[in-house]
């Protein structure tokens, strides 16, 4: 009986040690999981105004080869106070991060956002071209 009890205790200790000593998954500087995925693209793009309603007049044109996003916004849109939203491929992240409203008013110098793949080895800059609806 004593022998069985000891075996049970040893098994328990081994299982605890096994669970406790598993390697952590790798994470990046943002605490996000680094995975094996090398895919790196923007799947959708949205632009919201100060009222958090879309300012797009139609669907954006996302060219994943040329790495550009073309978006037309309503006449009278305040380009200085817009909230961009990117949908990315699984595990990818955006650089720079979007933390609040963004000024898109300098149409001659469009904003560039870089998509970083899940394995953090592929970086693709996307340029966002905003045009305003004209009468």
């Amino acid at each position, binding site marked *: *009986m004593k022998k069985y009890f000891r075996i049970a205790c040893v098994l328990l200790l081994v299982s605890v040690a096994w669970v406790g000593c598993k390697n952590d998954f790798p994470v990046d500087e943002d605490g996000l999981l680094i995975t094996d995925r090398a895919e790196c693209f923007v799947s959708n793009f949205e632009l919201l105004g*100060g*009222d958090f*309603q879309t300012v797009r007049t139609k669907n954006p044109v996302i060219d994943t080869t040329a790495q550009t996003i073309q978006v037309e916004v*309503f*006449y009278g849109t305040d380009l200085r*106070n817009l909230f961009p939203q990117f949908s990315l491929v699984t595990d990818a992240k955006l650089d720079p991060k979007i933390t609040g409203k963004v000024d898109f008013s300098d149409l001659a110098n469009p904003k560039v956002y870089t998509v970083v793949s899940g394995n953090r080895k592929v970086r693709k800059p996307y340029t966002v071209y905003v045009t305003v*609806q*004209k*009468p």
Partner: protein
Amino acid sequence: MQRNYSYITLLLLICLLGVSACQEKEIVTVTPLKGSGFQNDVIKRTLGPNVVGLDIEFAYAMALPRDMGRITSAQVEASISGASGTYLEHRSFYTDGGGADVGVVVGQPSATEGRITRVNFTADTSAATLRYFYRIPEEARGQSVNFTFSATSSNGQTVSYTMGPYTVGKMDLKLDLNVVDAGACYISIADMAVYTAAQAAANPDKIDLVYLYRTIPNVTFNHGLVSPAADAQYRPGITLPAGVNRSIKIRKAWGIRDFHLARTQFGVYIDDLDFQQLNLEGEPNFAINMRAESGAWVETADGRYRAYIYFNAINNGARSARISIKRYAL
């Protein structure tokens, strides 16, 4: 020795089970009223911030055992006298099976003297629930107000119940202003009023916004609120009266259907705090394509007022809109 180990193991298992099984559960209990005799209770029926000119509504319930007598009077004393329109119902309401409130007359219509509103009972009743409507007066703006509800029975007993303090907001409210393109389209936040071009010419320094409706091919313009100082392309076809040239900061808002302004089913309230924390730095001086049930936060150029303009209704055919304004003086 073997038996000892078995006992210890068993004991540990039992302890483990005991710890997990004996976690205390929160049990809801109802505390009965202490004592008996003449009792009273109050609930506040209105929600949201208290705004000058609006009512705070209470339901005051009072009852005593039948053999102890009947109710002879009920009164409410407010710490600040209510404005005209303050009253205590002389009908006791109950809710019928269909959910409708049914009133039963129990006394004379209330009389208000100073801070006290009183109902003298004429019905022989030992239980009643009276509603009290306190019309918030101008004197209460930014102040706190308390209420003492009391009732007297025929055996001389008196019961009372204190409610409050309730803080009254500093906000102003103006409902249902009709703005018409090329008509009464000049909006003054300072006056919370709408003026025609002729009236605006007489008060140019008070005009903050111009309402307009445009249908322009290929663009979505529709109903707009544009400051006189905005780029001319956003106020096409408008010749401003002499001296009307003020600017404003404006941000469109959607989904903020303030209950006081919209009077719909949505329990959303704009309070003083919203205006205090509002930051319109860098916002434009025009807003176009306003829709029904949308709104706009604004701040006047002189920094004296912040306001929320709500579009209750729009009418494309009549080129008009009905707006309501909540304003906060900084």
